[in-house]
């Protein structure tokens, strides 16, 4: 946590978690907590009823946690991880959300993503989009001191 203070003068450049980004990360954190909590309860009490749905819940929960961390951390590695987790989440909510409506029998038990995240105020549907928009606007510049030009190009490639 010590580098949070030292990075402060360049908050707009180096760190993604400053300003309104904090709200995004905070909501992500709450969603991660909710998903982990729910998945923990499901697996602890009734895993046998729907192993697939509950395994998926657990996976989604872990990905939300990783996404939250990746959004906070700076650097290109975390930037890539953030993109990967957000794309995974968005794909998940679209695919599972659609399947749960088209063929409800497939998912008799609720997951985070059922009905596009209805049980979570549709936050799982909206959040990855906001997150990706945020990432696209805040490419990693912290490591850019050494080779700014190359960094900018790579980050552009990542975003595309």
């Amino acid at each position, binding site marked *: 946590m010590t580098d949070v203070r030292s990075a402060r003068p360049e908050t707009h450049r180096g760190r993604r978690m*400053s300003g309104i980004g904090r709200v995004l990360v905070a909501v992500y954190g709450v969603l991660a907590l909710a998903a982990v909590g*729910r998945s923990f309860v499901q697996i*602890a009490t009734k895993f046998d009823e729907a192993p697939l749905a509950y395994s998926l819940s657990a996976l989604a929960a872990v990905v939300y946690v990783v996404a939250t961390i990746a959004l906070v951390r700076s650097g290109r590695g975390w930037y890539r991880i953030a993109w990967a987790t957000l794309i995974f989440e968005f794909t998940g909510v679209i695919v599972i959300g659609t399947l749960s409506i088209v063929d409800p029998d497939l998912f008799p038990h609720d997951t985070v993503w059922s009905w596009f995240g209805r049980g979570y105020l549709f936050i799982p549907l909206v959040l990855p989009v906001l997150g990706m928009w945020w990432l696209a606007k805040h490419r990693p510049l912290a490591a850019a001191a050494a080779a700014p030009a190359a960094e900018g190009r790579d980050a552009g490639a990542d975003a595309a």
Partner: protein
Amino acid sequence: MIEWFTWVQVAVAVAAGILCLVLGFAGRVPSDLTNGALVLVELLLVVQLVVALLAPAFGNQPTGSVLEFYTYLVGALLLPPAAVFWALLERSRWSTVVLGVAALAVAVMVYRMLQIWTVQQA
């Protein structure tokens, strides 16, 4: 779980959440008022924890899953300290908004806890 106390708790958390959101969007940095509101929310959660631990001994049993109830309660207990900690770390208007988000999340979680305790058939 004491029902009226829980409703008071939900009301306080919602009020704290709206207060922080309004002040945050108005550009205020976290203050004693907004941080204090979250401290109040946390204190009520601690009281709720004590009540929940003692209630079964007085014949006040949860109708739903005890595990689920405590997962919510422990999760809710973590939120205000995390938000306040963050608000102290970066003093910007958005930290005030984060305080509001945390308080509203607590309100939702407490409401779910009430459902689990009183009406859910597990």
